[in-house]
Every structure is written in C-alpha cells, then in structure tokens.
C-alpha cells in the first residue's frame, strides 16, 4: 500500500459489522423462515458464507445459499471492449416466495445490484429481496439502497475502495485509496 491509502476497517471491525448485520437480518425477518442467502461473485459469496455461519451460530439453522454471477447481465459489456470471465450462477433451490438476502461487498453506483436483481428475477419471483453490503461508499447512479450496511463510508468519486477477504486475498481489510494508489 502506498502512503495515499488508509485502512478503514480491520479484521475485527469487519467481523463485528457482520455479526451485527446477522442479528439485524434475523430481527427484521423475525427468524429464518423462508430466508435464503445469495452472494454476488466473488467477494459477496464469501461474505454470504460468513453470514450463514453467524446465523447458524445464533439460530442453529443452515440457510440455503446461492451464488450469482452478474457478468451476463452487465450494462457495459459492449462498451468495455473485453469480455469478463464468466464463472457461473448456482442457485440450487427455488426462490419463489422466499425472502432473498442478496450480499455484496461494496455498494457504489448501484449498477451491480441492478444486474444482480435482473439475474435473480430470471430464477423466479421472490417474496422480497433485501440487500446486504459490507461498505456503502455513496455516488449512486441508480435508485438503489441497501437494507443492511456494514459501514457507511463517505468517499470522493476518484477514490478507490478495496475490500480484501481472508478467503481470496489472505487478509480481512477495507482500504480506501487515491485512484491508482493501491
């Protein structure tokens, strides 16, 4: 990391935030009935797995969990000049009439969530969809909001937010950096 980046959440802060969000999910839904988790590739999947473990510890119930790959639903495919790798969607249970908790790492423009909602709706008609994000950094370009937020992080648009997770990056950390600084 260069001098222009700073850590805004460490491993402990991330864990505490997820513990609180797990309790909030259970409180708002009054338990785990008809509740399913869907993680957005790739870091959203790891976060969803952690929430699943926390909910298991609290309620002694394993929630069904799915994975969504939004690549095929992106609105910038024919503008980006390259084709992002497709890793596939796996939702092994019907989502009709379920309360779907969608999990992603950073909420920024809202375009990823828009794509994820489109992808989700192709699998059925959930009773409702609730959004969990670890970090909400603002600067929405679409009318999207999160139901559960790990941390609200005011940022400038030219700044970059990096979420590192043990499962894929070897450490738990949220870092904010100047563009090109990380």
């Amino acid at each position, binding site marked *: 990391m260069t001098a222009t980046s700073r850590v805004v959440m460490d491993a402990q802060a991330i864990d505490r935030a997820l513990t609180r969000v797990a309790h909030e999910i259970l409180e708002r839904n009054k338990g785990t009935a008809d509740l399913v988790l869907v993680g957005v590739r790739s870091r959203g999947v790891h976060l969803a797995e952690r929430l699943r473990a926390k909910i298991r510890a609290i309620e002694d119930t394993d929630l069904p969990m799915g994975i969504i790959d939004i690549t*095929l639903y992106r609105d910038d495919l024919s503008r980006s000049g390259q084709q992002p790798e497709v890793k596939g969607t796996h939702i092994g249970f019907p989502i009709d009439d379920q309360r779907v908790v969608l999990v992603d790492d950073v909420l920024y423009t809202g375009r990823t969530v828009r794509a994820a909602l489109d992808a989700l709706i192709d699998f059925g008609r959930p009773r409702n969809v609730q959004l969990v994000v670890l970090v909400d950094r603002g600067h929405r370009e679409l009318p999207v909001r999160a139901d559960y937020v790990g941390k609200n992080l005011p940022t400038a648009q030219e700044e970059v937010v990096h979420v590192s997770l043990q499962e894929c990056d070897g450490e738990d950390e949220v870092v904010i950096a100047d563009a090109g600084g990380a």
Partner: protein
Amino acid sequence: MPFPHRHLLGLDGLGCDELTFLLDTAASFKEISERDIKKVPTLRGKTVISLFYEASTRTRASFEIAAKRMSADFVSLTAASSSATKGETLLDTARNLGAMRPDALILRHPASGAAQFLAARLDCAVINAGDGAHEHPTQALLDALTIRERKGRIEGLTVAIVGDVLHSRVARSNLFALQRLGATVRLVGPPTLLPPELRDWAECTSDLRAGVRDADVVMMLRIQLERQGKHFFPSLDEYARYFCLTQAVLVDAKPDVIIMHPGPLNRGVEIASDVADGPYSVIMDQVTNGIAVRMAVLYLLASQPRSALELVADPLGSATGAQPAVAAVRARRRSR
C-alpha cells in the same frame, strides 16, 4: 483479454490456455439451459446470421438456440433458400449480408478455407461451422468439453479417432485441440482414408482392434456417403466388416471407455446400434454441450464493440487486418 481473437476459424494455432478458457467459459454457460427461463440478456441488440451451404441439423439448430438463449437476434439462411441458387457468389452474398451490419456470421461451406476467406473481407466476427475437410472448431470444443466432464481431465488420455479421417474436419479440429490439451491421439481407418500428411501428427493404424486397445475415448467419424463414390473402399459392407465399432471390438478398450460420434449416425456402417445407444455412449451429452460451447463462442466474439474490434490484431485470422487497419487509421486521422 483472455481470448484476444476476432474470429473462430479453427483450433489449429490456439494455445492450451485459450482452449481451456473457452472450455471453462462454456462450462459456466451450461446452467442457463437448465433454468426454467433459458435466457440471459447478454447479447441483446446483437445480430447473428448463420449461412449454411451444406445440410445440417445439429450445428444449425445448436447455434440458433445458443444465440437465442443469449438474446441475440438470429437470422438463418441456407444455400437452398438463398440467392446462391440464382448464381450469386459466396463473396457477393456475404458482402450483402455484411452490409446489414451483423455482429457475427456463422458459415458452413463445402470449400476448405471459406471462413478464412470471408473473415478477411467482412468486418463482423466470422465463426467457422465447418469448411470442407478443414476444421469444425465448435464441434471439437464440445467434444473436448464432454471428455473433460466425463473423465475430469484431458491431459494423459488416449483418444482413438476412427473412420473417414481424410474427409473429416471434425477429426482435424479434434486432433489439434486434444493434442494441445495433452491427450494422445490415434487415427484409425482404411489406408485410403488416412491422409499421409497427418502421419507426422499422430499415430495411424488401419487395425481397428489395435487402434481401440486401451483407449479412454473412442471417437467415431461418419462415413461421408455424399463424398464417397470415389472408391476409397470397395463397399459399405466391407467397410463395416473392418471398421464398424461393435461391442466385440470394445472389449479391448479401457473398461470406462466413452464412445463419441459427431452425428449424424450411419447405424450399422461405422457404429453398431447397441454401441451408439449403449452405456458407454456420450453422444447425447455432446449435443447438450454443443449449446454451451456455442453460447460461449458467441459471448466471446459477438459481444465486442466494433471500436474495440478494429484495433485488435488477430493471429488467427491474420488476413483480417486489411480493412480494420484502414478503419483504425481513418479513425486516428479524424481524431487529430
């Protein structure tokens, strides 16, 4: 960019990484065909034209279904119902179709090199769906995907390709791809149907039992009845006696051998019915995987914006350079 090509003309020349990337991408698309709503919006607003100068059931239907599951607009033309019957040349037909601004053109043609010829002259992506006795890349990709699914790997396997190798574009594409992915390929057929130039590429034999011995995969080729009559073998009966894949021949293969065939089957000529329909047969898996492979190819080639295409140098379709390069130079001049 993991797949920096503008066209898919053949598999000869593609690297192991690129082939693996194509297979991985295809594998991730399989799930879409299992959904209730078998459609993703990825190629919305893209136009794909298929132009077939030879008969086809599987390939044409497969490309059309693949394009539609990706939400592309699809136009299907066959030589029999096109102006080719009025004497229009391939190039004229293709130029006219090109003027309608498709994003991809899928071509099947009896002349080897037809796809390459058009790729050099059109500014859309060209996908070879079989050109003469040259290549049929999407068939070999779906074969490779099927093998990988069934065996968990391709590297280290022994694959026997049996039959009319001389006329088979399927054999050529598979030979290039499977060898590049680490398999050992044997070519089996009557001496008249084993092209001498391929003897440098792979082990060749005219003894079916020897060719099949200890094979992990036996890939049968169709006797191309429409290309026969030139006395490559005395009669279909005699061919069947020596080269028909029967249960008796399979005894010498690995116990978990899989049997493949690109279709259409000549039952009783190159493959016995009880083998084609038997427990080792993965012929229907091949057809299912064809959709995913073609979705992946369309995703990688048709989703690219034109502006990006013009600047991509393509080692496969090296002749493609001319027009896009001119366009790129013009664009640069304009921007000054």
